[in-house]
């Protein structure tokens, strides 16, 4: 049924968006790294998943070219995707080694994002250039289509569940506290004995793994992946979720992801009435995203759910932070 298919697509997108938003929130909201190249780690995960499941490049008549080419079982392929995200995230994090102003660092990362897109689009041998990769196997293709769809939803849900548990290990407790201290004032944090460079690279790796997993799950679901799926502004979509929801708050940014998704769906729905151009709904989505981001920074910079800190009465926190 059409609505059921629609629901499945929405749920898978929501789950993969959540993973990516959590990862970026760890980097940006919690640790204060303005990673404007975050979409690159998502892309790394997707491409990695693709080339370890597609088999050799000569398959299917060799109509697409790419490096590597293996046929790993899907749980392993998802792990490879996450690892690729972690690796690329760490590499991007190297641009932050120099103690530059945060906005300057953000611009450097933005340029990295533009650059990687240019290179991957130009080099056919890497991931088939602008055309991208197609026929990426769905892990449940041997089941009947309806079951396969819901199986994928379940897979994404399991990944989100595990992801959230892992995420909380980094955003709460002493680790979360230290990262937030670094975000608030990294000079004072190193004066307090924190190895800021190491912490940043760790965060970039962990955040990258979340993005990589998100990308791998997307690639497996859609079955294709090309540079148009990861233009630099896609990072803005994740940032919008974080700013709207509440920078630094895990629950806040999850809510923000939902809000943005609903906002976009609503916005797109009333579109066909104002124009007949088929691509317009997506363009309009970007306008909504940009406007929502600016509006929140202007009117409510702390977001819908403000970051909460544990309050202590006696020796243990009376409430866990959100």
């Amino acid at each position, binding site marked *: 049924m059409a609505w059921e298919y629609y629901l499945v697509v929405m749920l898978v997108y929501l789950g993969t968006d959540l993973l990516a938003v959590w990862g970026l929130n760890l980097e940006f909201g919690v640790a204060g790294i303005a990673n404007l190249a975050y979409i690159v780690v998502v892309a790394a995960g997707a491409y990695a998943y693709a080339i370890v499941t597609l088999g050799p490049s000569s398959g299917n008549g060799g109509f697409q070219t790419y490096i590597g080419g293996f046929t790993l079982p899907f749980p392993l392929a998802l792990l490879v995707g996450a690892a690729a995200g972690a690796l690329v995230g760490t590499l991007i994090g190297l641009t932050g080694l120099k103690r530059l102003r945060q906005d300057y660092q953000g611009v450097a990362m933005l340029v990295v994002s533009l650059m990687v897109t240019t290179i991957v689009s130009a080099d056919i041998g890497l991931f088939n250039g602008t055309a991208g990769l197609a026929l990426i196997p769905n892990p449940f293709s041997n089941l009947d289509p309806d079951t396969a769809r819901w199986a994928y939803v379940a897979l994404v849900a399991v990944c989100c569940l595990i992801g959230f548990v892992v995420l909380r290990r980094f955003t709460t*407790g002493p680790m979360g506290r*230290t990262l937030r201290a670094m975000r608030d004032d990294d000079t004072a944090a190193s004066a307090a004995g924190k190895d800021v460079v190491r912490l940043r690279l760790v965060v970039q790796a962990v955040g990258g793994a979340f993005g990589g997993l998100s990308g791998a799950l997307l690639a497996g679901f859609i079955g294709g992946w090309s540079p148009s799926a990861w233009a630099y502004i896609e990072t803005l979509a994740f940032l919008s979720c974080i700013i709207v929801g509440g920078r630094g708050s895990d629950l806040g940014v999850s809510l923000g992801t939902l809000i943005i998704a609903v906002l976009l769906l609503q916005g797109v729905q009333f579109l066909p009435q104002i124009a007949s151009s088929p691509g317009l709904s997506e363009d309009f989505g970007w306008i909504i995203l940009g406007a929502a981001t600016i509006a929140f920074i202007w009117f409510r910079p702390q977001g819908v759910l403000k970051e909460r800190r544990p309050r*202590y009465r006696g020796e243990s926190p009376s409430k866990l932070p959100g």
Partner: protein
Amino acid sequence: MALAATGPLLEVDHLEKHYGGVRAVDGISFTVERGSITGLIGPNGAGKSTALAMIGGFVQPSGGRIRFDGVDITGMAMHARARIGLVRTFQMARVFGNLTTLENLLVAAPRQRGERAAGVVGGRRAWRSQEKELVSEAQAMLETFSMAQKANDLAGTLSGGQKRAVEIMRALMMQPKLLLLDEPMAGLSPSLSRHLEDVLLKLADGGLSLLLVEHELETVDKLCGKVVVMAQGKVLSEGRMSELRLSREVQDAYVIG
């Protein structure tokens, strides 16, 4: 190690810092003995803050060497110095604004299990007991600085004097051997200043060494054994405050009341 523990705690040897043509610090040498409070005074622009920043590892020297506890630390990163007990505060108090006052102290505690890989993997169980101890330690410290009622306030909302206090408590949580303080009394009310003086004296009695940049000479007089006088990037002279007051040279460079 046994040998190292006998020499001065900090040895600054011909330390230099140039900014383009400006010789902010121009070859200074002095020592800080164990368990002492040493003062660093001089007119504005003398290079005191720059010297402190180099000792703390925030600024890389253009020349010279720094030894701490018998180890050459000239090229060591700031966080590594902090971990071996060389801790600084800033002239403009810096707090973690979106953490609570109590968290500001907790964050500075050394060797936290919850920060390490094992603690992150193991979760709450791995660090709960240590965290409990740290919380009571931090709460006790807030008591001694009479800031217990601010424990759960975000540090960004505190007054200037309170932020300064948070910074010093945070430094103390790190169990330092030598504390570098850059004008800690600036902007504090007279009563708070007296209070802080008492606290610092008590800490020194407990064996902590201090290197104190201060322009309030009464404070320097009261707290410091040895005083180093700087002007235009150089050390003019050093000695006890009472002797320095009589020195012609010092009086010329730095009008002493």
